[in-house]
């Protein structure tokens, strides 16, 4: 069937992209000015330490050899060893992965829950007061730093109203849920201005479509017209718009985790930067690319499931 074939093709198309991301992540080390080992260890490092690091990172090998080794290890799920912790990068990331995944999921869900109703409302009252407000207010949000928004939400909902914990993730599932709401909302609201604006336009297109007129001409009633014809097409555009912006959403989790002290992969990356723990920074960067590719794949699959035209191309 067309659908399965389409998913197969998309999966196949993701392979070279992932391959390409490994190139970028690999060459990061060669952007380090001077001798990476000296830069990473600091100028007071002993020559023995520098030599040991050279050997460990394979810097004494030719570049193509280094990359092939890097790729070979990657294929076995080996992202190298942390300089700072006595642990592999892969296990460090796996230990932190759940908070990040929850945050991405919560962010995406909240983004849809907030943006779609607003966009539908604005589109159906086109030209009215609600439409004007919904169109102008996001302009204020386009330049809003996600971390600042998070701080403001903490100030309001955690410190003043006491509804949520100021930070942290807790240990039980209930605490996880409580701890993820404000960060998730932050991630979602940071994306909302962009989402609402593009969604409103697609909603107006859907509601003004000829096929909606055709459906109305059938005399099947307004509710049935909205549910049977408008919503599914609106969902198609929502998924498209979300898909385009998903990389932004995933990226904003990095700094939002930091604001709320969530024990996620993003916090790990910041910590690793301060520890000058190069392999961990490299590994987390790779992880985020894989996340984006995976989420893109998911939105493509959802898109194809909703819109039969996509399966053709």
């Amino acid at each position, binding site marked *: 069937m067309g659908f399965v074939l389409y998913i197969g093709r998309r999966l196949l198309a993701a392979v070279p*992209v992932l391959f390409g991301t490994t190139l970028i992540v690999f060459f990061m080390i060669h952007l380090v000015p001077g001798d990476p080992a000296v830069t990473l260890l600091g100028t007071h490092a002993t020559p023995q330490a520098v030599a040991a690091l050279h050997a460990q990172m394979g810097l004494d090998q030719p570049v193509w050899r280094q990359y092939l080794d890097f790729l070979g290890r990657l294929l076995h799920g080996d992202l190298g060893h942390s300089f700072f912790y006595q642990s592999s990068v892969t296990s460090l990331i796996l230990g932190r992965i759940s908070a990040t995944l929850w945050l991405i999921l919560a962010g995406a869900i909240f983004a849809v829950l907030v943006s779609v109703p607003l966009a539908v409302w604005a589109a159906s009252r086109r030209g009215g007061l609600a439409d004007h407000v919904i169109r102008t207010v996001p302009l204020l949000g*386009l*330049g809003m730093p996600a971390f600042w928004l998070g701080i403001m939400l903490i100030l309001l909902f955690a*410190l003043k109203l006491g509804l949520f914990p100021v930070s942290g993730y807790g240990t039980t599932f209930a605490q996880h849920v409580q701890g993820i709401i404000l960060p998730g909302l932050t991630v979602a609201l940071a994306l909302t201005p962009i989402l609402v604006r593009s969604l409103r336009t697609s909603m107006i297109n859907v509601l003004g479509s000829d096929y909606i007129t055709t459906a109305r001409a059938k005399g099947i009633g307004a509710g049935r017209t909205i549910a049977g014809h408008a919503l599914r097409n609106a969902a198609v555009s929502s998924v498209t718009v979300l898909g385009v912006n998903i990389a932004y959403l995933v990226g904003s989790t*990095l700094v939002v985790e*930091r604001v709320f002290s969530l024990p996620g992969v993003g916090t790990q990356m910041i910590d690793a930067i301060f520890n000058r723990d190069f392999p961990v920074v490299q590994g987390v960067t790779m992880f985020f690319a894989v996340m984006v590719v995976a989420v893109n794949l998911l939105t493509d699959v959802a898109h194809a499931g909703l819109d039969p035209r996509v399966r053709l191309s």
Partner: protein
Amino acid sequence: MKALTLPGRSVPAAGTTPRPRRRSRRFNGPLLAGLILFGLLVLAAICAPLITKADPTAQDLTQALLPPGSRGHLLGTDRFGRDTLARLLYGARIDLRVGVLAVVSPFLIGTVLGLVSGWFGGWFDTLVMRIVDMVVAFPFFVLVIALVFALGPGTGSIYLAITLVGWVAYARIVRGEVLVAKNQEYALAARASGLPTWRILLRHLLPNVVLQAIVFSMSDIVLSILAIVTLGYLGLGVPPPTPDWGSMIQDGQQFMLTHWYLAALPGFAVVITGLALALIGDGLVERMNLR
């Protein structure tokens, strides 16, 4: 007056929705408002020494954490007794300058690559687009932060990191426009007239395809300011004690319960900058009648 031929089979039936009369004005509301707002911000940054006598880096622990409206400190002071207004204004100098300048080289590189790959196609196009695919697989902030880490601290690294990541958006936009423009009659006519390729690209194609890139650059400046502020917040940006909105927010975060405005004010500055640029972008779209 134009003679109207009626209505053979060749005359397409246009829709019946009336088109509002087009107003051709140099400036429209959003564009004007955005330009004025952004102009005021730039002016405030440039005239910082005229607006406040205070030194943004001068510490005075006896004057620490003063509330807004204090004598000599209109917006109060931070935990080291540094004047908040002065830090906001001098911070604007850094953040606006880096934000705008950081967009210049991605704009140029991306536009040229998009133009060339869209026009010639072939292996070069494939190569450029594959690289674009690789770069956009990373979240913008993540890659910029990782690159700044690799390149080491300082504004030079920030420029380079944003350039390495930012050009792809321009390349994509311009390439898409070129693919459309390339088959339009003016481009075909230019080709048919045997003009040298560089001339067709620069004189005929570029003016038509660059508009979208210019509009995008407005939101791209916002993005690059956000990147700088985020780096500052994470402690990876412009090194202290140079004032920067991001590091100010980070400093203020620990006094949130008692001195909320310390974190709030620099954020407002970023929001207003974003608003100004968004208005300019919207106004440009309206004025150029782009899609």
